[in-house]
């Protein structure tokens, strides 16, 4: 009897530990993000939801889904159709074309370093919280994939490979849209760009040219470009604040942007600051892709600003059209901006449909 009490107490004691009680529970292979040195050194860790840890199987499933037109109603478009790896996962067309020929009003956003979007507000207007929820939208958007998740889930269940891949990624749970978007989010979180010339400069592995260095000074100079307040700096190598600003594109708004989402007129005409990484691959620029070249972008801030009630206070000399950079300053600023592009990102086989 005493021996039995000892065993009961022992069992109770063991229950104090954090070991899983069901040792047969399937656990996919953990695959934590590899944090780049320039991020590790300068900024806080990425956002990884506790209920969607990175796994080898989840990332692989997410990648397959990302490149699979099975998500679209007529099997013609994958996520990659509008988020092309060669273009840092954006679309070189100003407006992407949906499966039925519909055309949107905004430029497809490039996809990288999304795990470091700390506020987790996604899209140009921040209308969706979390990467997992973001992935729900394009599938059902009438001007994009124009599908239903019920159809997608049915297709995945009847597919020859996906049931096994979902099981490997998430265990024996039935296929759901939530699991599909979890996998997509896992893959998208692996899209890390951190190997530009400027990143190498930060690591002491590359030297900026005189023109690039002068361009950085213009970028950081409050009396010249003053780009750093919204677009990061060498200590914030995301090169965005991921916050919503009216950068003086229009005097009146046909697209309210963040204001449509918040319902606050003070937010009308505000859109998320995009990262300045990979500009070499992501033309056209701005939320509506109105500028085809970096020269046009720089000219906008230099002499093209349009006043409006919600224009950001950081947009200086609005009555003069902008900060009035010299031709040389513009050329130097462009050279610096291009040093933030990362060819290894667009050529990374892990991110391509192979």
């Amino acid at each position: 009897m005493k021996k039995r009490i000892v065993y009961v107490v022992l069992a109770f004691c063991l229950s104090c530990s954090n070991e899983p009680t069901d040792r047969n529970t399937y656990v996919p292979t953990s695959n934590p993000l590899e944090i780049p040195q320039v991020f590790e050194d300068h900024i806080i860790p990425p956002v990884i939801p506790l209920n969607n840890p990175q796994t080898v199987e989840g990332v692989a499933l997410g990648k397959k889904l990302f490149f699979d037109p099975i998500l679209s109603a007529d099997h013609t478009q994958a996520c990659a159709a509008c988020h092309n790896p060669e273009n840092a996962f954006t679309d070189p067309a100003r407006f992407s074309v949906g499966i039925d020929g519909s055309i949107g009003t905004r430029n497809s956003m490039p996809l990288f370093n999304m795990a470091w979007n700390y506020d987790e507000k996604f899209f140009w207007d921040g209308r969706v919280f979390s990467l997992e929820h973001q992935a729900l939208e394009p599938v059902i958007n009438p001007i994009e994939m124009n599908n239903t998740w019920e159809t997608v889930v049915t297709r995945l269940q009847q597919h020859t490979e996906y049931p096994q891949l979902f099981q490997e990624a998430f265990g024996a749970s039935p296929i759901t849209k939530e699991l599909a978007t979890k996998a997509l989010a896992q893959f998208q979180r692996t899209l890390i760009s951190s190997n530009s010339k400027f990143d190498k400069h930060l690591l002491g592995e590359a030297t900026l040219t005189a023109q690039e260095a002068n361009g950085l000074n213009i970028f950081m100079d409050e009396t010249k470009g003053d780009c750093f307040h919204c677009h990061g700096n060498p200590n914030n190598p995301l090169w965005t604040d991921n916050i919503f600003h009216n950068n003086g594109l229009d005097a009146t708004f046909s697209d309210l942007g963040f204001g449509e989402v918040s319902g606050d007129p003070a937010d009308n005409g505000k859109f998320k600051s995009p990262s300045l990484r990979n500009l070499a691959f992501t033309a056209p620029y701005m939320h509506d892709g109105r500028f085809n070249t970096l020269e046009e972008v720089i000219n906008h801030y230099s002499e093209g600003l349009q006043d409006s009630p919600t224009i950001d206070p950081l947009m200086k000399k609005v009555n003069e059209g902008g900060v009035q950079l010299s031709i040389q300053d513009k050329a130097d600023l462009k050279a610096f901006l291009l040093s933030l592009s990362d060819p290894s990102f667009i050529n990374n086989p892990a991110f391509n449909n192979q």
Partner: protein
Amino acid sequence: MKNILALTFFTLLCFSCTEDADDNTSENVSAAFKFTHSWNDTPVTNTDFNSIQFTNANGEEMSIEKLRYLVSNIRFEKANGEIHNTSGHFLIDVTNAVNLVFQPYTPIPKGEYSNVIFTFGFNNEDNYSETYTDLNSASWNVPDMLGGGYHYMQLEGKFIDNTNTVTGYAYHAIRAVDNSDPDNLLFQDTFINVELGPVSITKDLTFNVNMNIAEWFKNPNLWDLNTLHNMMMPNFNAQVMMFQNGQNVFSLTGITE
């Protein structure tokens, strides 16, 4: 007998699994800091932002669109010179109502204190001694060409200028720097040590501190936004004026226990 010993051992082991009870209730307390904001006597929150509804001492009508500032180096001084330092810095983001109430990470010993002090911004050691990933992530940095380190405050909005035009302003406080010779930057300290006065600490308490935003534009320097509304980070004199006007911006409105 062996089984009884084993039972005793495992029972003790089990109890060791539980979290420690509060084992230090006698000597230390936690002190919180709650920051409120006003325009003179009128309370201000982020719901008052984005509309031109304030009038500064110089007569300009103005709005606030963004206000965030840094508080650091909170310390408790005793009459005998003993100082109890706390760790941590706090970026108070009024725009998004983040960190309006915070607690230093260090417990405070009970006792009589002759002064409680915090630093608006960073002192020079804290400003340059290390990189703060949280502040970098908030793009709170000062460009290297201005000496590096971090902002103390970002206050932004619009005002109606003397041509009746709505114009943006960016009242950004940093350590004053004369960068007329880029190879020989000249600095003047502009962080502010805010003294909250004596306190007797016997239990957990909250210091209620108010920032009167209007003071930044009032005393001793009557601030003319028409001439000083942007590009103030590299403006040495403007930074010194901000420092001078900031001396009476903060006040202790009460202590709650």
